[in-house]
């Protein structure tokens, strides 16, 4: 197998750039160099001009580069040489990029002063370069988060256009990408800044960023700010609660978790656009799947506990300030979780098998935690941890290290959905909903699968799609974000993302369509009775 393993060394497609692409690279790197210079402290005279030049240069370069890459070829799947290229095949460029992004995240989260953030005074360096844009939008000077948000949005827009061009034969992919581009630009970037301009007391709120992804949404300072900002603030607070309790389950029931993860979410948006070149790097092994389930659900339990503890810590003994007293809140959380758990155990027990036990464990943990809060804590402590300590730990480990440094920094090594798959508590909740009560599934087309493996290879969530397709089973998996790439890369038209009735959604077959009708009935009856 040696020659096959080293195929990228032996041959491969032409690696050279076309002339136009060389110019695009020149333009892009020069524009990026402006940002680098600013980061190293160069104080540009006319910041508005240089910022515009830099950002539009980067945007233009990516668009130009992709246009030349795809314009000469007929429309269709564009995966030639993916594993031969250094950047998408874990080569030198992949490692270099990974280290660069990781370094950026470390500085961003933990040493923003190196980017030019000045606590009491005008910004310097990179952050000051972004001041004009920030002032234009919100009226305030830029922060490290504004710089990050701008670059993030720019990445989604630039690579989103590349993606749309790459998949110009596929309307599902185009619409989905336009959707994430819109939600990032409008909801995450522009609207919160404008809201800050209109009403300075409102907390920064990306309305599509739902708890528990937005794990700090119900912290005291935010809740206070919401309440103090009158009807609008109150409306936003209620929207935040309704989002997770009503809107989310409803939309997931109708469309699967894709409505959020690959159509709306900002993390998903970056993964689907800038991260598209890395989707094949996800680990498909059974081992990775086991790790995924334990880790992501543990994060979910952690975030529920943490949030409950944080809210509990600032609620009063009576209802004078927050409508809820400490004990009412705890009982409410307990009743809600018990209700969900009871529903699952009564109506969905058969669908869960071993998984139910894990779910029960997680649930038990939460309940015990709640009781512990009630009996062993004063207003600031849960067991011996302070709720503030819990919050800080979560914010550091999950909010910063997992979602940013590892989740995005390691795109070129572990694939583009490491955070979504192993770390995102929102994805975990939506996944449970999708697995237990959703009309969404990926339908397998009769007996047409040839087990080629394109679907599994290009599944960014590491789902072994082929394992289902080759036994004629629909794919109903908690982790599936519905990006639709498996269906796109399938050379035989086997996979289709669909919403339909819950009955018959999960349907393994022993013998596939095309064979003797009697044999199919016989074998598939047996397999049904086993399942």
């Amino acid at each position, binding site marked *: *197998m040696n*020659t*096959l*393993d080293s*195929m*990228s060394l*032996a*041959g*491969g*497609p*032409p690696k050279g750039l076309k002339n136009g692409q060389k110019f695009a690279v020149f333009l892009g790197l020069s524009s990026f160099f402006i940002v680098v210079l600013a980061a190293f402290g160069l104080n540009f005279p006319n910041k508005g001009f240089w910022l515009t030049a830099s950002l539009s240069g980067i945007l233009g370069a990516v668009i130009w580069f992709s246009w030349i890459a795809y314009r000469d070829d*007929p*429309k*269709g799947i564009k*995966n*030639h*040489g*993916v*594993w031969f*290229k250094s950047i998408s095949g874990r080569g030198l460029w992949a490692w270099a990029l990974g280290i660069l992004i990781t370094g950026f995240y470390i500085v961003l989260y933990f040493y923003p002063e190196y980017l030019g953030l000045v606590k009491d005074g005008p910004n310097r360096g990179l952050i000051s370069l972004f001041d004009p844009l920030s002032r234009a939008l919100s009226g305030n000077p830029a922060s490290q988060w504004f710089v990050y948000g701008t670059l993030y949005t720019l990445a989604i827009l630039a690579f989103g256009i590349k993606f749309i061009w790459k998949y110009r*034969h*596929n*309307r*599902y992919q185009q*619409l989905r990408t336009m959707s994430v581009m819109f939600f990032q630009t409008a909801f995450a970037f522009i609207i919160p800044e404008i809201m800050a301009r209109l009403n300075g007391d409102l907390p920064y709120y990306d309305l599509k960023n739902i708890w528990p992804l937005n794990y700090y949404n119900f912290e005291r300072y935010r809740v206070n700010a919401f309440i103090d900002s009158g009807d609008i603030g109150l409306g936003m607070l209620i929207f935040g609660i309704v989002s997770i309790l009503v809107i989310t389950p409803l939309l997931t029931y109708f469309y699967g978790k894709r409505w959020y993860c690959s159509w709306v979410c900002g993390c998903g948006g970056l993964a689907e656009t800038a991260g598209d070149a890395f989707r094949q790097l996800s680990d498909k092994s*059974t081992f990775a799947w086991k790790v995924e389930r334990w880790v992501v659900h543990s994060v979910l339990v952690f975030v529920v506990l943490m949030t409950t503890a944080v809210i509990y810590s600032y609620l009063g003994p009576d209802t004078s300030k927050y409508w809820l007293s400490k004990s009412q809140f705890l009982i409410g959380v307990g009743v809600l979780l018990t209700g969900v758990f009871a529903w699952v155990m009564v109506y969905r027990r058969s669908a869960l098998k071993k998984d139910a036990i894990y779910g029960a464990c997680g649930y038990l943990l939460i309940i015990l935690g709640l009781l512990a809060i009630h009996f062993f804590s004063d207003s600031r402590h849960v067991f011996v941890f302070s709720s503030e300590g819990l919050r800080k730990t979560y914010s550091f480990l999950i909010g910063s290290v997992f979602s940013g440094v590892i989740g995005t920094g390691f795109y070129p090594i572990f694939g583009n959905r490491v955070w979504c798959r192993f770390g995102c508590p929102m994805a975990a909740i939506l996944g449970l909903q999708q697995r237990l009560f959703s009309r969404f599934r990926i*339908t397998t*087309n*009769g*007996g*047409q699968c*040839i*087990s*080629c*493996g*394109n679907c*599994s*290879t290009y599944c960014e969530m590491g789902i072994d799609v*082929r*394992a289902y397709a*080759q036994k004629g089973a629909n794919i109903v998996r908690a982790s599936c974000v519905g990006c*639709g790439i498996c*269906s*796109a890369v399938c*050379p*035989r*038209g086997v996979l*289709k*993302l*669909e919403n339909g009735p819950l009955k018959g959604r999960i349907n393994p077959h*022993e*013998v*596939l*369509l*095309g*064979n*003797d*009708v*009697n*044999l199919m009935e016989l074998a598939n009856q047996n397999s049904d009775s086993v399942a």
Partner: protein
Amino acid sequence: MQIVIIGNGISGITAARHIRKLSDHQITVISAESDYFFSRTALMYIYMGHMKYQHTKPYEDSFWKKNRIELKRARVRSVDTETKTLILDSGSQIAYDKLIIATGSQPNRFGWPGQDLKRVQGLYSLQDLEALEKNAPDSHRCKRAVIVGGGLIGIELAEMLRSRNIPVTFLVRETSFWNGVLPQGESAMINEHIREHHVDLRLNTNLKEILSDDAGAARAVITDGGEQIDCDLVGLTAGVRPNIDFLSGSGVQTDKGVLVDRQLRTNIPDVFAIGDCAQQRTPIGKRRAVEAVWYTGRMMGETVARTICGAPMEYNPGHWFNSAKFFDIEYQTYGWVSGASSKDPQERQFHWRHPEQYLCLTISYHKESRVLLGINTFGIRMRHEVIDQWLTENRTVDQVVPRLGEANFDPEWYRHYETEIAQTFTSKAEKVV
């Protein structure tokens, strides 16, 4: 009971998996080609860089031990059916109680002068792919490739080589690509698409001779038109034939392939043959006696497992179906749609093609009863289950055409063309009346 399966392709592996599900027999799978089962149909994607070899393995390596399926890497030299023993190339022997021959195919070579030169190869096995990687790593070391034989493997090889920018001349014997199978309109559309991918497509052209350089490697081909085409690689893709040479002298009856009855039994008790290498003594319906298709191999594997595990079962495939991809155009077929050069006199065809895009469809139906015989689609995905049911229920073309939307399997938000198709059908029918 010791069951030995020669060949770890889709047929042999499907048989092994189903035997394991149904029984506790000992199962040994022997392969000279690879340690583990991989998807042969995915070989092209390794060369094109879409996947690595390990991605083409449908099961993790631990699967086989867990399911007690023993894998053995060896070449079988001969079969002694008297003593129920296999003799391997190494000289060692393996005893069996039941033997399943699932050795697949090998590329056809029709005695062309120069066909055994270096840098002349087919594309079937993992070893063929390794050879191709050496023979045609890039456009510097392979300045032109000539492909001989206009079938599914030929066009795949063309796509592979084009992915590395290697110039390709494609010699096709027929007057239009694959028109023994495809109706004229479809075949013509694929001709266009092949040329759009900058393949030098030569229709109506045969290979006469392959010329050698001093080192015994191909340097050019001569066509039957007398033209010489310089090249560094000759791909022979004029179909495949059963890979059964090792059976000579074993007493197992063969013709093109291993002759089997409907229960997939050979003339020798306890010896079965499935997949590409099996030949039905009497062809089933309109099917060929030798069916070298992924799906039929799988179906035979499903069937033979039953027979071996004590519930004898005939190989009784349902409605024919198949699929392929020609560069960027997906193709699906259900039931029987005759090709341009082999049209059934009882069959009438309705053909629709999109005016600009590479989308088309052909519906074939019986001239008098108007019962649906089959559907071909290009660039439109169809739902297997729905069409299978239509064929079973003997729906007429007039019932089917207005309901084509029910069978559409394209991704969500795709443009649908059923209305246009139905309108075209009606207007054509009016003209006929």
